[in-house]
C-alpha cells in the first residue's frame, strides 16, 4: 500500500533539518524572528517620528528667536529715526545730543552705546564721551547706508572701537524729504546684553538658543557662557546645520556643540531681513529621553514576553518531540531483540495511536515468537531424545555385533590352523569365506558407526585452509602406497569456514576415492580446486579415473551402495554417504559429474551464511 506524496514533501525533506525537534525549533525561531523584526521596525518608526517632532519644536523655538530678534532690530531702526530727528533739532545745543543719546542708552535694553555721525562718518555725538570725534566712515555698514540703504547691520566685531568688547552695530541713515543723507544713527549692541531681549523664549530643560551673524559667527548664546572669539567663530566648521541655513532655508539636524561637546538636535532658521541665523538646540539625551525610556520599557516587555513564548514553545515542542523520541527508542529496543519491550503510550494523540498500534503489533510478534520458541524447544528435546536413543543403539551395535564376528573369525582360523589336515580344500575355502565375510561385516559396522558419529558431533566452525588440509591428506595417501605415481594439483589459498575434523574426513574420502579409481590409469591425474557456480563458491575434486555412468549419479551417495563390482577396489560404499552428510551439516550441497572411462568430478559448496 502506497500513498501519494505531494512533491513539496520531497523539497521539505531536502531543505529542512532531519529531526522533528530541530524542525520545531526552526518553526518557533522563524515565528519569533519575524515578530521581532516587525517590532524593531515599529520602534524605529516611533523613534524617528519622535526625533522629527523634537527637531520641529527646535525649529519653532528658533523661529521665535528669529521673530523676536528681528522685531528688536526693527524697533532699533524706528528709534534711530526718532532719535535722528531729535539730534538734528538739538544740533545747536552743545552736549544736548550726547545727553539724549546717553539717556536713551540707559533706558534701552541691550544697547551699549549710540553714536550720531555726519554723512561722512565722523562722530558728531555719542552716548560715550570718548567716542566723540571718532570715525566710522570706513565701516562696511556705513558704506551700505551711504550707498542708499535705509539701514544696515554689521557682523559681530571682535572689538568695538568704543567698548573694546565684541559688538555689533545697527546703523540707520537719517535723510531729509528729498532723500539727502543728513547723518547716521549708530547703535552699538553688546551681545551679552541680548539675554533680556530674547528671554521671552520658553526655556525647556537643557535647551539652548543662539544667534549667528551673516558670517556664521556666534553672536549670542543662552544659557550664557564665557565665549572666547574662537568659540564664537568655530561654528562655521562645526555646525553644518547652520551652514545650510546660511543658504536661506531653515535646516535641522544633529550637531556636536563645540561648547559642551554634547550631541544636540539643532534647528537653524535664517532671519531673512538681516541675513542672520537664529538657532535652537537640545541635547539628544534630553530631547529623546522620553521615547528612549518608553522604548526601553517596550523592549523589556517584549523580551519578557518573547522569553515566555519561547519557554512555552519549547515546552510544547518537547511535548511533541520527546514522546516521538521515546517511541523511537522503544521501537529500537524492541528491534534489538527485547521482545517484551513495549512503547510508552503518552504524548500527542497521533503518537499515542502509533504507540498503541506498535504495542499491538509487538504483542503479536512476541506471542508468535514465544510459540515458536516453545515449538523449537519441544523439537530440540525430541531431537535430543532421539539422539540419545541413537547413541545407545550405536553403542549396542558396537559392542554386540562385533563379538559374534570375532568368534566366527577366530574359530575358523583356529580350525584352519589346527585342523587343516582333516579338511579338504573345499572345506578350507568355505572357512576362508566365513573369515572374509566376518571381517567385511566388521568394517561395515565401523563405517556405520562413523556415519552415526557425524550426525552426533557438534560442529565447531573455524576458518580452514582447505588447500593445506588437502595437501596433508595427499601426503598421507602417498605414504600409504609409495609405489604409486599420481599427479596431484591443488589450488593454493582455498580458505573457508568449517569444522576441521569433519571437512578433513570429507576431503579424505573424496581424495581416497580419486586415488582408488585412478589405479588402473597410465597417467593418473587429480585436481583439487575452487570455482564460482551460480553465485556460489564450489570446491571440486576431479580425477581422470574410471568414472561412472551419470544414470547412477544419485545412487552414489546412498550408504553401502557401490557401483562397481570390481573386488580389486576396496570399500564399503559408505564414504560418499559420509561426505554428503558432512557437507549437509555445513549447510552446503554436494553433486557429481562423471563419464565411464573418462573420470569423475565431485563438487561441493559450503553454507555461505556461516
Amino acid at each position, binding site marked *: 500500500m502506497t500513498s501519494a506524496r505531494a512533491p513539496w514533501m520531497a523539497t521539505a525533506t531536502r531543505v529542512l533539518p532531519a529531526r522533528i525537534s530541530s524542525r520545531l525549533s526552526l518553526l518557533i525561531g522563524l515565528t519569533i524572528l519575524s515578530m521581532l523584526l516587525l517590532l524593531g521596525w515599529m520602534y524605529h518608526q516611533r523613534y524617528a517620528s519622535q526625533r522629527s517632532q523634537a527637531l520641529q519644536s527646535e525649529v519653532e523655538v528658533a523661529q521665535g528667536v528669529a521673530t523676536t530678534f528681528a522685531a528688536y532690530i526693527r524697533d532699533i531702526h524706528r528709534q534711530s529715526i526718532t532719535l535722528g530727528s531729535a539730534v538734528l533739532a538739538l544740533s545747536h545745543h552743545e552736549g544736548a545730543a550726547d545727553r539724549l543719546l546717553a539717556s536713551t542708552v540707559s533706558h534701552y535694553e541691550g544697547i551699549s552705546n549710540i553714536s550720531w555721525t555726519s554723512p561722512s562718518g565722523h562722530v558728531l555725538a555719542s552716548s560715550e564721551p570718548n567716542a566723540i570725534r571718532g570715525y566710522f566712515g570706513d565701516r562696511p555698514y556705513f558704506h551700505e547706508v551711504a550707498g542708499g540703504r535705509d539701514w544696515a547691520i554689521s557682523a559681530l566685531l571682535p572689538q568695538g572701537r568704543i567698548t573694546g568688547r565684541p559688538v555689533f552695530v545697527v546703523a540707520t541713515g537719517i535723510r531729509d524729504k528729498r532723500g539727502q543723507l543728513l547723518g547716521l544713527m549708530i547703535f552699538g549692541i553688546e551681545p551679552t546684553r541680548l539675554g533680556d531681549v530674547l528671554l521671552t523664549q520658553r526655556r525647556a530643560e537643557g535647551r539652548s538658543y543662539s544667534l549667528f551673524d551673516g558670517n556664521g559667527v556666534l553672536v549670542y548664546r543662552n544659557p550664557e557662557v564665557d565665549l572666547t572669539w574662537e568659540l564664537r567663530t568655530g561654528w562655521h566648521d562645526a555646525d553644518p546645520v547652520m551652514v545650510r541655513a546660511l543658504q536661506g532655508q531653515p535646516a535641522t539636524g544633529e550637531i556636536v556643540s563645540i561648547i559642551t561637546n554634547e550631541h544636540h538636535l539643532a534647528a537653524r532658521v535664517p532671519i531673512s531681513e538681516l541675513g542672520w541665523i537664529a538657532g535652537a538646540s537640545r541635547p539628544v539625551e534630553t530631547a529623546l529621553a522620553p521615547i528612549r525610556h518608553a522604548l526601553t520599557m517596550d523592549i523589556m516587555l517584549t523580551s519578557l514576553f518573547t522569553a515566555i513564548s519561547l519557554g512555552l514553545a519549547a515546552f510544547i515542542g518537547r511535548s511533541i518531540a520527546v514522546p516521538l523520541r521515546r517511541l523511537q527508542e522503544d521501537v529500537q529496543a524492541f528491534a534489538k531483540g527485547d521482545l517484551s519491550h513495549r512503547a510508552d503510550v503518552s504524548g500527542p494523540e497521533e503518537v499515542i495511536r502509533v504507540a498503541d498500534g506498535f504495542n499491538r503489533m509487538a504483542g503479536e510478534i512476541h506471542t508468535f515468537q514465544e510459540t515458536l520458541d516453545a515449538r523449537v524447544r519441544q523439537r530440540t528435546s525430541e531431537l535430543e531424545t532421539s539422539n540419545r536413543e541413537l547413541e545407545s543403539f550405536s553403542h549396542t551395535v558396537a559392542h554386540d555385533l562385533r*563379538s559374534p564376528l570375532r568368534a566366527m573369525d577366530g574359530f575358523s582360523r583356529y580350525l584352519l590352523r589346527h585342523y587343516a589336515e582333516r579338511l579338504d580344500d573345499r572345506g578350507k575355502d568355505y572357512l576362508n569365506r566365513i573369515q572374509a565375510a566376518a571381517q567385511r561385516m*566388521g568394517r561395515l559396522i565401523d563405517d556405520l558407526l562413523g556415519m552415526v558419529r557425524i550426525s552426533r558431533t557438534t560442529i565447531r566452525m573455524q576458518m580452514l585452509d582447505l588447500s593445506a588440509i588437502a595437501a596433508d591428506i595427499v601426503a598421507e595417501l602417498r605414504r600409504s602406497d609409495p609405489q604409486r605415481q599420481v599427479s596431484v594439483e591443488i589450488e593454493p589459498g582455498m580458505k573457508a569456514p568449517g569444522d576441521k575434523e569433519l571437512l578433513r574426513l570429507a576431503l579424505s574420502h573424496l581424495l581416497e576415492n580419486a586415488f582408488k579409481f585412478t589405479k588402473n590409469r597410465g597417467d593418473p591425474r587429480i585436481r583439487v580446486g575452487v570455482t564460482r557456480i551460480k553465485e556460489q563458491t564450489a570446491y571440486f575434486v576431479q580425477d581422470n579415473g574410471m568414472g561412472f555412468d551419470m544414470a547412477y549419479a544419485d545412487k552414489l551417495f546412498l550408504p553401502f551402495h557401490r557401483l562397481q563390482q570390481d573386488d580389486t577396489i576396496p570399500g564399503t560404499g559408505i564414504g560418499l554417504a559420509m561426505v554428503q552428510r558432512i557437507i549437509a551439516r555445513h549447510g552446503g550441497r554436494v553433486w557429481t559429474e562423471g563419464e565411464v572411462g573418462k573420470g569423475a568430478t565431485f563438487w561441493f559448496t559450503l553454507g555461505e551464511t556461516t
Partner: protein
Amino acid sequence: MKEPVILLVEDNPDDEELTRLALEDSNVANRLFVVRDGQEALDWLFCEGVHSGRDPCFTPTVVLLDLKLPKKSGLEVLEAIRKKEYTRRLPVVILTSSKEEQDVLRGYNLGANSYIQKPVDYAQFLEAIRQLGVYWMVLNEPPPHCA
C-alpha cells in the same frame, strides 16, 4: 615366586574360549580363572558368596575385564575394586568390543590400568592377547600383596 594367574571376567563363552586359546598359544598363563558376571567377579576377588572359602591372599596378577556383563557392569566392578583397600592397586585391563569414547574415558577415570579393544580380526586379537600377556605377566612388576 607366586604363580602368575589371570582372572578373566567374560560372559561370552566364545570370547572366553578365544582368549583361552590365545593365551595358550602365547604360553604366558599357567592358570586362567574365569567368572561370568560382574557380581561373581567381585565375590571371587573379595572371597565372598560362593567364593567365601577362597584364600584371600591368592590374588590374580592381572584382571581382564569385559564391560558389558550381566548383573553388574564392568565399570561397576572396576569401581568396587578400586574402593576396596586390598584390591586398590590390582592391575585391571579393560578388554572389550566397545571403543566408544565415553567407555574409554569412564574406564580410565575409574582407574583402569589399560584399555584394549578386542580386534574383530582374529589374527589381530591373537596378537593383542599375546602382547598383553607378555606385558602384564612377564614385564610388569605387580604391586606387593599379602607379603
